[in-house]
C-alpha cells in the first residue's frame, strides 16, 4: 500500500477550520468550567458545601444566612445518597449533610460524623438543655444510641404512628370517628378499616386505612414489638429475632392488613406511592402519618379542613410508645473542611429564623423545647391536632438502632419480600419471620465484620 506523504502547507480552508475550532474551544471552556466550586471563592469567602433537600432549605434562607454571615458563601448540593457516598469516598465530604436521627448509629459508629458536644457547650443559641429528648437518637457512646455525645441535631420531627382521618367518610359508613384522646388497638383499627373500605367490581373505590407501606415497614413493626414489651435486637445489637411471639404478632397484623385489602401495599401500590393524594381525594379514610401531615391541609378546601382530625398512635400491647420513625436533621462530617462555619449554619438553621418558620408552619414538631409553643393553632383542626399532639409527646419512645445495619433502608426490602410471600400464602407468617431473621442476621454479621 502506498505511504501517505507528509503535508506541511497550510491551506486557507484548513486555516479557517482550525481558527473556528480554537474559537469554539475558547468559548466552550469557560462554560464547561465556570461552575467549579472550590473551598474558597474568588472574593476570599469560605465556601460552605451543604447537602440538603431543596424543599427544606430554600434559596431565601441561604441568601438570608449569607447576608448575616458575609464571610461565608453556600454551595448547595441536592441530597443524594449515591453522591454522598462518592463524596465520602473521595475524602471531599460536604460541610453539612441532611440525615435522619433514627438510623444514625451506623454513621456514628463508623466515625463519619463530628462530635457536636464542644460546639453545644460553647453555643449561646443551641445548647444541650434546649434540645428535646428526640435528639437523643443522634447520640452514640460507642455501644448504644441515646447516650454519649451528640453527632447531629434534628430539624423537626413527628411521632409517625399517629392517625389522620376524614370524619365525613366515617359518617358515610355510619361508624363512630376515632377518639382524639385515647389510642385504638391495632386489631380494632383493622376491623374499622375493613368497614370503611368500599369496593366495587373488584376495584377499591375507597381504602379504609393507609400505612405508608412504601415508606417504612421496619419502624412500625419495631414499634408494635416494643409496645408488647419485646425487643428488636439483642443487647449487643448484633442479632435480631423475628420469630418471637411479639414479632410474629406484628408481622401477622401486616399480613392480615394486606389480605383484607383495606389499604395500599407493595402488591397493590398507591398510584404515586404515597397516601396523601388518596386521602385528599377522599379515597382513604385513615392514614398513618405523623404531625407533619397537617401541613398539607392548610391550603386545602374547607371541606377537607373541617373534616380531618388526628388520633393518637394505635397500640399493640400494654406499652403506649409513639416514636419518630426518622427525625430528619443534619450532621457535620468528621472530614468536613469548615466545621466552625458549618456549626454557624447549624445554629442558624436549627435555632434561628428557619426553625421558627418551620414550627409556625405546622410541617413538623420543633426539636427545641422553646419552640413547642409556636406550633400553629389558628384553624380548628390545628387546635385539635395541637392538643392531641401535646398528650402524645408524653409517649415518645425511641426506636432501636444497630450500627451494624442501615436501619429501614436495609430492613424494608427484606421485610417486604417475605411479607409478600406470606400475603400470597406461599409461606406461613412463622416461616416468613424465620426467613427475615436469617437474612437480617446475615446483614448484621456482615456489618459487624466491617465495623468491628
Amino acid at each position, binding site marked *: 500500500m502506498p505511504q*501517505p506523504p507528509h503535508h506541511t502547507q497550510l491551506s486557507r480552508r484548513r486555516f479557517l477550520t482550525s481558527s473556528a475550532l480554537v474559537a469554539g474551544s475558547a468559548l466552550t471552556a469557560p462554560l464547561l468550567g465556570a461552575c467549579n466550586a472550590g473551598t474558597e471563592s474568588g472574593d476570599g469567602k469560605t465556601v460552605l458545601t451543604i447537602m440538603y433537600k431543596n424543599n427544606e432549605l430554600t434559596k431565601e434562607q441561604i441568601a438570608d444566612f449569607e447576608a448575616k454571615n458575609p464571610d461565608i458563601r453556600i454551595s448547595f448540593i441536592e441530597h443524594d445518597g*449515591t453522591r454522598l457516598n462518592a463524596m465520602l469516598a*473521595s475524602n471531599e465530604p460536604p460541610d453539612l449533610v441532611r440525615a435522619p436521627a433514627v438510623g444514625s448509629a451506623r454513621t456514628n459508629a463508623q466515625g463519619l460524623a463530628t462530635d457536636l458536644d464542644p460546639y453545644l457547650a460553647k453555643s449561646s443559641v443551641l445548647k444541650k438543655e434546649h434540645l428535646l429528648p428526640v435528639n437523643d437518637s443522634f447520640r452514640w457512646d460507642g455501644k448504644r444510641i441515646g447516650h454519649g455525645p451528640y453527632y447531629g441535631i434534628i430539624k423537626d420531627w413527628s411521632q409517625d404512628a399517629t392517625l389522620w382521618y376524614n370524619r365525613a367518610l366515617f359518617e358515610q359508613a355510619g361508624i363512630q370517628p376515632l377518639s382524639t384522646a385515647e389510642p385504638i388497638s391495632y386489631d380494632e383499627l383493622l376491623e374499622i378499616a375493613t368497614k370503611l373500605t368500599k369496593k366495587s367490581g373488584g376495584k377499591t373505590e375507597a381504602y379504609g386505612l393507609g400505612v405508608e407501606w412504601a415508606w417504612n415497614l421496619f419502624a412500625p413493626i419495631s414499634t408494635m414489638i416494643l409496645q408488647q414489651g419485646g425487643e428488636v435486637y439483642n443487647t449487643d445489637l448484633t442479632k435480631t429475632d423475628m420469630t418471637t411471639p411479639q414479632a410474629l404478632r406484628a408481622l401477622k397484623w401486616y399480613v392480615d392488613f394486606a389480605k383484607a385489602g383495606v389499604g395500599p401495599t407493595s402488591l397493590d401500590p398507591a398510584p404515586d406511592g404515597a397516601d396523601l393524594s388518596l386521602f385528599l381525594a377522599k379515597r382513604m379514610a385513615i392514614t398513618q402519618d405523623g404531625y407533619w401531615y397537617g401541613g398539607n391541609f392548610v391550603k386545602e378546601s374547607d371541606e377537607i379542613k373541617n373534616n380531618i382530625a388526628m388520633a393518637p398512635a394505635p397500640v399493640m400491647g400494654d406499652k403506649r410508645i409513639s416514636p419518630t420513625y426518622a427525625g430528619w436533621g443534619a450532621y457535620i462530617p468528621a472530614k468536613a473542611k469548615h466545621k466552625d462555619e458549618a456549626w454557624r449554619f447549624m445554629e442558624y438553621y436549627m435555632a434561628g429564623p428557619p426553625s421558627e418558620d418551620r414550627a409556625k408552619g405546622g410541617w413538623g414538631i420543633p426539636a427545641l423545647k422553646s419552640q413547642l409553643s409556636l406550633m400553629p393553632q389558628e384553624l380548628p383542626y390545628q387546635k385539635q391536632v395541637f392538643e392531641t399532639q401535646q398528650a402524645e409527646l408524653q409517649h415518645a419512645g425511641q426506636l432501636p438502632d444497630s450500627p451494624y445495619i442501615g436501619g429501614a433502608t436495609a430492613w424494608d426490602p427484606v421485610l417486604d419480600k417475605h411479607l409478600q410471600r406470606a400475603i400470597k400464602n406461599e409461606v406461613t407468617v412463622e416461616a416468613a419471620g424465620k426467613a427475615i431473621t436469617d437474612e437480617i442476621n446475615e446483614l448484621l454479621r456482615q456489618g459487624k465484620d466491617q465495623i468491628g
Partner: protein
Amino acid sequence: MTVTRTPATTPATSTPPAAPSRSSRRRRNAAGTYLLLMTLAVLFAGPFAWLVLAALKTKAEWVSIPTKILPETPQWGNFVQAFTEINFPAYLGNSLFLSFMFATIVTFSSAAVGFGFARLRGRGKRPLFVLVLATMMLPQILTLIPTYVLFARMGLVNTYWPWVMWALGASPFFVFLFRQFFAAIPAELEEAAIIDGCGYGRIFLQIFLPLSRPVLLTSFLLSFTWTWGDYIAPALFLDPDQTTLSVAIAAFYLDPHGNPDATVQAAAAAMYVVPVLVIFLFGQRYFIRGVVSSGVKG
C-alpha cells in the same frame, strides 16, 4: 364413418374462483402490514399520550377510581406551573448544551477510533478491538463512584469536563458501528486518495467522514438521547444550578415536605420529551439508514 365430435370434456367440479390478482394480494398484504404498524404505533405512543393526559388532570382525577382517561377540564395551568416553578429554561439550556456537546465529541472520537480499527494496520489490533467491545459489558453504574473519586481529585466535579473526557474516550458501541461501516468501503478509494497525496487524516476527514453521514447521524442521535435522558451522572456530578432537566424534573417539583407533585411533574416530563421527539422525527431516515448500513440490526 361417422365421426362424432364430442365437446371437450368439462371437469366434474365447478370452475375454481379466479386466482386473486397480484395487485389485490399486494393490497391485502399492505393492509395487514399497516394494521400491524398502527397497532404498534398505538402501543408505543400510548405511554406518551397517557403522560400528556396525566399532565392535564387535577390531582383528584390523577388518583380517581375508576380511572378517568380524559380530564374533565384540561389543566393547562400544570404546564405553566411546570415551566415557572423551577428555572425550566436554564435547566433546558444545560441539558441541550451537555447533550449536544457530548454527542458531537463522542461521535467524532468514535468515528476516529472506528476508522483506525477499520483501515489502519497494527500489531494487536484485533485483541484491542475485542477489548474495546468487552468494555460494553461493564455497567456504567459500577464505575461511577470510582470515576467520581477520580474527577473529585482533579477538581472537575460540578463542571461539564467529565462529559468531555467521557466523550473523548469514545463509545465502544459507536466505535463498532463506525468500524463496520468503514470496513465496507472499498480499499480502492483509500488507495486512490493516497496516490493523490492524501494523508490518513485527510482520508478520514474528507473522504470517509462525508461518506458516513447516516452513521454519523445515528451516533449523534443515540448519544444525544442517552445524555438527554441520563439521570445518575448529572445527579452525581452537578450541583442544582448546573444540573440537567432530567434531575430537575425528578427532584425539584416537591411540596415543603417532599411530596412529589405528580401532575406538574407529568407536564414537565411531557415538555422534556419534545426535543428528542423532534430530533428523531427529522433524523429518522438517516438514523435507520445508518443502523442498516453498518450491519447492526435489532
